[in-house]
């Protein structure tokens, strides 16, 4: 077991691409750290630098107390699970799992014992004699896990290990990996582009973008208190709604004006310095409710026309257009492209489509006018210039 530390680490490829830019990150002993971000954000490169599969251009990577910059992978006491599984096709499942132990010249008895233990944990006992090509995707993935855990390494590295599995198996393996990691207590770094995996698995989640670390925090904190527009948009599904708004002083408090709507906010004195200035208002889908269900609780209201209703059973996603403008900053545009969100493209000037997660009791239908109650305590504000969050304490 060991902690892992990135100390001002950069990676510049031969063609000049800066894949990782001055990364500072400490992963504590036994922690499950998830690196998440869109394609090309540098998360896999960062992981490969810990593995020793990628040279470090600048900075220091430590595993435990050791600086490992110049150590070969075999001397780093790590194990890695690859996106493609990377099983040795000419070896049986048993030999695949035993491979790192044989290389380390562990005694035959010990190899037998450890392989049997790994096979038991991963439910692979019936398949030990098979070759990888005779296994299903999920079984191959488990063999790859077995090869990693059998070594009892100081650090597990996992590079999108679930991305080749179907959705159902992915959910199951997600839980299995988390359970195994908790049981073994091995420091783990897990790379994924899937924010659901990141949120469900990580003790902490590090969000990366264009080689830079955006925020590192426990999943709930990341969700509740994103430091910038990028993190706010990346974490959460459906994504946070983002609107252009303007702050105005109103009586003893402030109001946020978006289009023809005006949200009175009495508990947001820290917005007062932004009087008269544009801000980006972020509203999570679940922080909105059909006003007919919410009742008259004094919450601010938005009015719009329902464009689409998606009943999910436990709740209903309602897409509705309001007379306001979507905030289209570079961050938002990039996020929309990355997740294939076409809300930005389909908009007329002057209207924005929001997504609300309503109670299944809502009766709104497509084409209806709807009044939406907004939880004023759950609103997010961002500076449109810097993209940074604006909040009190």
């Amino acid at each position, binding site marked *: 077991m060991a902690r892992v530390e990135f100390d001002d680490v950069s990676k510049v490829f031969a063609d000049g691409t800066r894949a990782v830019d001055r990364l500072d990150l400490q992963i504590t002993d036994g922690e499950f750290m998830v690196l998440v971000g869109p394609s090309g954000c540098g998360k896999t490169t960062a992981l490969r630098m810990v593995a020793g599969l990628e040279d470090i251009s600048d900075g220091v990577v430590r595993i435990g107390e050791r600086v490992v910059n110049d150590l070969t992978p075999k001397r780093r006491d790590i194990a890695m699970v690859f*996106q*493609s599984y*990377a*099983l040795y096709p000419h070896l049986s499942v048993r030999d695949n799992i035993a491979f790192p132990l044989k*290389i380390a010249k562990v005694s035959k008895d010990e190899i037998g014992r450890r392989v049997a233990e790994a096979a038991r944990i991963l439910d692979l006992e019936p398949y030990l004699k098979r070759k*990888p090509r005779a*296994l299903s995707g999920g079984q191959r993935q488990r063999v790859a896990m077995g090869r990693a855990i059998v070594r009892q390494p100081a650090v597990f590295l996992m590079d999108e290990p679930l991305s080749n599995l179907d959705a159902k198996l992915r959910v199951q393996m997600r839980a299995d990996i988390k359970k195994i990691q908790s049981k073994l207590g091995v420091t783990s770094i897990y790379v994924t582009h899937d924010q659901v995996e990141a949120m469900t698995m990580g003790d902490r989640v590090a969000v990366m973008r264009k080689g830079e670390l955006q925020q590192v925090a426990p999943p709930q904190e990341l969700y509740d208190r994103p430091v910038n527009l990028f993190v706010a948009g990346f974490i959460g599904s459906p994504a946070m709604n983002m609107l252009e708004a303007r702050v105005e002083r109103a009586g003893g408090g402030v109001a946020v004006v978006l289009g023809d709507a005006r949200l009175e906010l009495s508990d947001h004195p820290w917005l007062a310095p932004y009087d008269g200035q544009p801000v980006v208002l972020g509203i999570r889908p679940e922080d909105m409710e059909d006003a007919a269900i919410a009742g008259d609780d004094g919450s601010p209201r938005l009015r719009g026309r329902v464009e689409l209703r998606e009943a999910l059973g436990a709740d209903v996603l309602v897409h509705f257009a309001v007379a306001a403008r979507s905030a289209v900053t570079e961050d938002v545009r990039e996020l929309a492209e990355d997740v294939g969100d076409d809300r930005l493209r389909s908009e007329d000037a002057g209207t924005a489509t929001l997504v609300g997660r309503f109670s299944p009791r809502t009766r709104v239908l497509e084409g209806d006018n709807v009044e939406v109650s907004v939880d004023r305590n759950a609103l997010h504000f961002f500076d449109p210039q810097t993209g940074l969050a604006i909040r009190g304490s």
Partner: protein
Amino acid sequence: MRIRMVGLGVRLTILAAFAIFFIAPVLWLVLAPTKSDHALITSNPFAFGDFHNVALAWKHLDAFSSHIFRRWVGNTLFYAVSATAITLVAGVPAGYGLAIGRFPGRKLVLSLTLVVMIVPGAALVLPIFLELNAVHLIGSSLSVILPFSFFPFGVYLAYLYYATALPPSLLDAARVDGCGELQTFLRVALPLAKPIVALVFFFSFVADWNNFFLPYVVLADSNQYPITVGLWDLLSSTPSFNPAVGGGGQSVKIFKPELALATLIAVVPVAIVFLFSQRALVRGLVGGAVKE
């Protein structure tokens, strides 16, 4: 329906004509040792003679120059196996290095490999002769084995395989699992390259087995000849091909059936190597390694 039948008939006729064109000489060759020299000319070309004639042809062939034919077959095996072994030991790792290594001059070496591949072997015989002469190897076995073992096509085949068919993540996995570069090659890259090893073995062996010009130039002693040069020696000792040695009470009893038998025997090892190599070639070893 009628048009389709006519089309089929035309296709079959064309195919049959080509098949006969190529099969006829092979069939003639296979049948030739079963006939006497005279019957070979006078009887039906595709008639079977007698096994007795085969035994007689072998007796004459084996008696030629005190069993020198056996020596030629042995020499060829020795040259081809030695050179192919060196080719495999040097060529497969070289291809691997060119495919996964990143070092200065890599592209130059690759280009040179390609260039040398397309230069006809005969064009290099004179410079090789001069080189071997300079290092006093002319006339030795090494004068054949060393040039034979220079097989850029094998390097290029291995390079192509490792650059295109071997998933890089397998090599990364081996490194993370504790292998150094040599172990990564020996334990992962090499076992996965069985089809390519078989292919390089086959092409190299056949090229070495069939090479005539180089040994003809660098070997002076007929005891050192490989079978290709030996066949030429036999031809020049056959009265029907070289009247200068014909008739006149000579003890050389090499006629057309003996030559045909010698040719057939010369082909057998290549056919065996092909059969064994082919089995390994068709196996897709990389299946299941990584998610397809």
